[in-house]
């Protein structure tokens, strides 16, 4: 969640750079382009020009497909080791790659969603390096001409952690390339052996390269979150970071405004969005501290240690590799068509038509949010929260369909009650014990003024237990119906007034706030079964008598 990620880095920022909100506008162009709150980071102890952090991302998204990029083996997370390995995946001599059309379509879809131009002709290359989980000794990738280039991604984040102040930013997408995933190596240090699982070897990846248009962990996190939502909306990747379907490498450097970019480091092994924000911010801070103490930054690969919360140099990638790129001779150029270039006699099952895919793109998150705001009159920030939780939008819309309550009021129940319960119990929307039907039912009782909102919360708490009772049953069981008999209510109000002489005096002396206390007392007396508006009226009437 973007908001959570943003929260994560706030402390680090201030300590390191003593930044103040609303500071002077930055001079450096880069700073202008990328700083959310204050502009360029003020200098530390040395008192020199401020620092401008630059963050670029390389994101590997595993393509959601039945089979691998170049072989017929199945793709499945957490299958028994080496159970999904074809002869090609194990690089048996004489085997050849055969491109999976589904993977191409996923990449085209993603490219279109990220406003890229799709290359009608793209090429595959071999990237060589020796590693135990790379059986062929090379990875097939798209180094020279990738499938999609020159796109952009808009994402939003909140300023100073306030949901009400959202800023929309854009990061340029340099390219999207198709490539093979590697297998997994497991190092058993005690027995000094390495075990290799090739289930993942050859699974299709989309590498999305984002230009260094970001300047802090918060921005990087928000951009990745938006990308994740887009991929999930398209279905081109499940993009679950915990399952390694989305892996982020961050390129980080700092420099003074007007000067060339500093030496960058690459931070790998970031496996959650929260850690991405932390890793990037840690790395920015570390680089500034290094430079300000007169040291230099090495162009190196580092890894984020989530337990220590810091980045450390990676040992096995120390040596600079020459990947000896070479065209993949076993794959002809990948040719894509559009409506115009599509040859009439071509078998439609064998070609990929860009226009066809374009027409069938689902609504992207940004469009969905705009529609939610427009259709239901909810706040833009609420639309973000709705989309950020998988299934929450659908839940919300289901409730709306089944209740007379206005969407603006429903959203409060969704975000304040349902969501906080889900968070508290670490459940997903799908796992919620309160279905959209039950919630709508409950809200209808509230809307019909059969119960007070206090009582409704009690009913919700009961529903959460998942005992299969309907809201009405709970209302009856707990006797939560509003007291419909005005005389009964008047009596209770009178009793409260009679018992609270001091308060009555205060109200009569003009302290209206005390009235709320009396309302509360009536509520307590009726165990939430009174309509506060009505109680207020009654009390006021009685007090003015």
């Amino acid at each position, binding site marked *: 969640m973007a908001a959570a990620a943003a929260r994560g880095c706030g402390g680090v920022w201030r300590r390191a750079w003593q930044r103040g909100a609303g500071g002077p506008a930055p001079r450096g162009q880069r700073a202008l382009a990328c700083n959310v709150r204050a502009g360029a980071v003020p200098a530390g102890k040395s008192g020199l020009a401020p620092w401008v952090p630059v963050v670029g991302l390389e994101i590997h998204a595993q393509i959601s497909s039945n089979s691998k990029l170049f072989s017929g083996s199945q793709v499945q997370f957490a299958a028994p080791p080496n159970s999904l390995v074809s002869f090609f995946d194990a690089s*048996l001599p*004489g085997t*050849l790659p055969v491109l999976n059309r589904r993977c191409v379509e996923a990449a085209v879809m993603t490219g279109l969603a990220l406003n890229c131009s799709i290359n009608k002709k793209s090429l595959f290359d071999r990237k*060589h390096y020796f590693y135990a989980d790379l*059986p*062929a000794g090379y990875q097939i990738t798209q180094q020279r001409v990738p499938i999609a280039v020159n796109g952009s991604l808009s994402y939003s984040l909140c300023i100073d952690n306030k949901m009400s102040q959202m800023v929309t930013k854009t990061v340029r997408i340099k390219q999207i390339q198709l490539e093979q995933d590697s297998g997994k190596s497991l190092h058993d240090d005690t027995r000094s052996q390495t075990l*290799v699982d090739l289930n993942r070897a050859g699974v299709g990846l989309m590498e999305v390269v984002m230009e260094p248009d970001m300047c802090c962990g918060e921005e990087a996190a928000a951009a990745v979150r938006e990308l994740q939502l887009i991929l999930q909306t398209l279905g081109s990747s499940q993009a679950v970071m915990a399952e390694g379907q989305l892996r982020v490498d961050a390129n980080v450097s700092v420099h003074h405004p007007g000067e060339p970019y500093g030496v960058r480091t690459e931070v790998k092994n970031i496996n959650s969005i929260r850690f991405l924000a932390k890793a990037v911010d840690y790395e920015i801070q570390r680089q500034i501290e290094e430079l300000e103490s007169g040291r230099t930054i090495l162009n190196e690969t580092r890894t984020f240690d989530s337990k220590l919360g810091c980045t450390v140099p990676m040992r096995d990638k120390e040596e600079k590799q020459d990947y000896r790129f070479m065209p993949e001779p076993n*794959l*002809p150029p990948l040719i894509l068509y559009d409506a115009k270039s599509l040859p009439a006699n071509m078998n439609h099952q064998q070609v990929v038509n860009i226009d066809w895919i374009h027409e069938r793109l689902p609504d992207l998150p940004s469009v969905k949010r705009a529609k939610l705001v427009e259709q239901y009159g909810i706040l833009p920030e609420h639309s973000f929260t709705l989309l950020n939780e998988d299934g929450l939008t659908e839940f919300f819309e289901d409730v709306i369909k089944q209740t007379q309550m206005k969407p603006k009021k429903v959203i409060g129940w969704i975000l304040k009650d349902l969501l906080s319960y889900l968070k508290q119990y670490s459940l997903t929307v799908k796992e919620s014990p309160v279905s959209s039907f039950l919630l709508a039912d409950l809200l209808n009782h509230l809307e019909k003024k059969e119960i007070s909102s206090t009582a409704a919360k009690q009913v919700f708490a009961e529903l959460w237990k998942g005992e299969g009772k309907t809201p009405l049953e709970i209302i009856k069981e707990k006797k939560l119906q509003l007291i419909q008999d005005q005389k009964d209510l008047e009596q209770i109000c009178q009793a409260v007034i009679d018992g609270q002489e001091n308060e009555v005096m205060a109200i009569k002396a003009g302290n209206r706030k005390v009235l709320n206390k009396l309302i509360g007392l009536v509520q307590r007396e009726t165990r939430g079964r009174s309509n506060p508006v009505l109680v207020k009226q009654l009390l006021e009437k009685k007090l003015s008598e």
Partner: protein
Amino acid sequence: QRCLSLIKSTKFLNAYITVAEETALKQAEESEKRYRRGQPLGVLDGIPIAVKDNFNTAGIETTCASNMLKGYISPYNATVVQKLLDQGAVLLGKTNLDEFAMGSGSTDGVFGPVRNPWSYSRQYKEKSVPKSHSEDKDSNWVITGGSSGGSAAAVSSFTCFAALGSDTGGSTRNPAAHCGVVGLKPTYGLISRHGLIPLVNSMDVPGILTRCVDDAAVVLGSLAGHDPKDSTTIQDNFKLFELPNLTDVSKLSIGIPKEYHAPGLSSEILALWSKAADLFKNAGAKVIEVSLPHTRYSIVCYHVLCTAEVASNMARFDGLEYGHRSDMNKSTESMYAATRREGFNAVVRGRILSGNYFLLKQNYENYFIKAQKVRRLIANDFVKVFGSGVDILLTPTTLSDAVPYTEFIKEDNRTRSAQDDILTQAANMAGLPAINVPTALSERGLPVGLQFIGRSFQEKQLLTVAKWFEKQVKFPTIQLEEVKRHDHGVFQHQKSASFL
């Protein structure tokens, strides 16, 4: 069975690495049953065929004549092997080659050199005996050429009806020329490479070795066509053809590329070449001298592209998933290094090293990219010549007849390959079909062949012309003395046992 016993009696040729006796007998039995039922699987049913040991064969060792793959049994059949088996062919065994098909002599495999059957022919003995009289009787044998020398020798010595080779720079046509058999290199993309252990993916093609052009056409017909497992094969299905008996060549235009008058071309072959040209001319064909100006850059260019792909293709042999693994276990890296040092011979290691050098970032533009550009120029040379109305190019296949082994090994593999591929290699660069047709015997009594190069995917035209030529030159049958002693009359029988 006759073939199997012949294989045994010609064991000294070292043509086979593995003889699949048991499975071959079983296949033959089943084939016989089918014939008895009157339901043969196809024209190749029951036909004994040998396969070069760089094609994967399920259940039969595939070694590439390398320590790296000694004992390696593939779990799958190469598409071409599968197609042969599907047609009922009997797979006799796996034939010898240069390690990973890198060489032009069939002398650089871990199982030793292949001996040319013609070394033991009456024709060679009669003409060359005086010269070698004083020497050890056995030291005079000549090489087969390579790298598909085992396949060429197997066909030439009648141990099989046809054999599969592979052709990357001439590896099918060169040994075919030296062993006096037909060697066809089809157009790139016509036959699936799936299951062929690659040398240079962008030039490799499965090659066909037979005793006559008609046979080559039949085998081609059963192998050609799209393979979903090889993305570089043609999309269309291949149409079977029968070769017509050409009677009139007057509509043909035969090109004689002057650049193939290469340095080192023996006068004997030069004479034969012009005789062949005259043959066409006299029969009414148009014979014109043409120019393929970039031919001379071909070998250098090939060296760069070949080694680069070799470096890449050989990267998978790391001892992890299959093949040889060294006992060295200090670290993964040291295991890799030791495995590859022990598994590959010096030729392979040398090519890997130079290939990696050409692919280095600082060299890529200067070598690899340049070589690719030259390759395009070479291919364009052919396009231009064929565009000008020439139907078929006629060239020598080799510079000379086969040399004795003792001579051959005086030069290193690289020099040899560069010399021997010089006339065959450009066709691979351009992906064109080419065929060696045995033409005559040299003064030493050894076979000499000529090469025809055709237009892309115009195998039918190429083979038709080759067949006409074959008929005119009446290349003599090999007379194998030593074997004959054991196996009387087999050869005549085999020769006439044509299935057509």
